[in-house]
């Protein structure tokens, strides 16, 4: 099932920017320029944005309006970026965050350790 709404019964056609490529944990995805990074990730099926420091639990989008900061990720090398309110740009690198670290978090590597 497609998660993007093409035409909304009340709001009509959903207008989006141009299709651009971005990288998530090394994998290339496409999303629409200007839409929140979190929306592009959601369309690509990515739900886990980060793991917490104390309890190592996964977090994703929760409030979607930039308040709760559960959806923060490492964007272009900078940690703690609220992906639900940060617009997607061509060529962005978006990586899963672990705690507050600015080192990209690769789950498999972490588990192998």
């Amino acid at each position, binding site marked *: 099932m497609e998660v993007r709404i093409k035409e909304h019964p009340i709001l009509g056609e959903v207008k989006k920017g141009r299709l651009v490529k971005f990288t998530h944990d090394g994998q290339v995805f496409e999303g629409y320029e200007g839409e929140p990074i979190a929306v592009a990730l959601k369309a690509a099926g990515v739900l886990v944005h980060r793991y917490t420091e104390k309890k190592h639990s996964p977090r994703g989008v929760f409030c979607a309006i930039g308040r709760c900061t559960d959806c923060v990720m490492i964007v272009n090398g*900078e*940690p*703690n970026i609220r992906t639900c309110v940060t617009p997607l740009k061509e060529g962005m690198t978006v990586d899963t965050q672990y705690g*507050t670290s*600015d080192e990209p978090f690769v789950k498999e590597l972490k588990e192998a350790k």
Partner: protein
Amino acid sequence: MITADTIVVGAGIIGNAIAYYLAKKGQKVIVLEKSDNIGDGGSSRNGGGVRQSGRDPRELPLAMYGIKNLWPYLSEELGTEVEYYKKGNLRLGKTEKHKEILTGLTNRAVACGLDVRMIDAYEVRQINPFLSEEVSCASWCETDGHANPLLATLAYYKAARRLGVRFITGEEVLSLKKLRGRLRQVITAHDIYEADNIVLANGIAARDLAAYVGIDIPMSSALLECLVTEAEPRMFEQMLGTAEADFYGHQSKHGSFVIGGSSGLEAVNKDNGTPINSSITAACIARGIIKYIPKLSHAKIVRTWAGWMDRMVDGVPVIDKVDEVEGLYLACGFSGHGFGIAPAVGLNMANLVLGENLTCDISGLAYNRFAAKA
């Protein structure tokens, strides 16, 4: 009427520490706090520095004693993690004038036996690679550090409470009263408290209270402001300060940076009932930080605080048994640097009340230093 051996007025870290050490020696202690919260003054609004370097020689013995004998064991002693880091203090300079100030401070501290020295730009960056190119020198004291002021204040409270100290919040002291020539009573809106010893550890408010027994403490107030960032990746563990003390701070165990600073208007700022920040200070502090630690320019500030601090006319507190008024003890006027010496002040004040020997020389902090010079 409620009685105790000692009444401490003020539940900041100083009052809490005094109460703790008194209770530990078996005293029955009551702590009266006018605010609803424990630690509402400078105790909860400071940069968390636990340092010896940069201090006035008169309070240096307290700082050195505390760092050697109390701080390293404090979390264990109080049963609460106070996040103490003994990772050194860099006091930074950028100009020749800064270098002069720092060298002066360093020389005086060395004379008192402190392990502090001047270092050059290269060595500064060896210790802390995140500092900007502008930093040209620093004083470096390896045994300095920092702790979490919020936790340390509450840790003393919690431990003192466990030892039976009775803390009463929302209880503003209205006046003091002498009975038969000796200070005995503390009068509040709700009750009269009586004790053999009364310790004023309530910051600027101590001035008005002491006046009831004819004592004037020459201090004024200033608004202290701090800010805190979101948790950042681990960067460094030292305490930082600057030659002109325009900003100071550290990265906490949590990862956030806790940084204090000034706009220059601290002494004349006003408040609206609660100590609200001035509208310009956070920006001043932020500009200062970015100049010293460029990497923090994208760190998000999540909160700022302001709190009234007591400023003694000569910049160091009064820690004394007041001979002129039997039963009165003063521990106030810490002038924004009371946190790091709080454990040592608490211990020594307790000893003073109990008539026991002090652990270090605090004669320079006596009340009678304000008497007119002959």
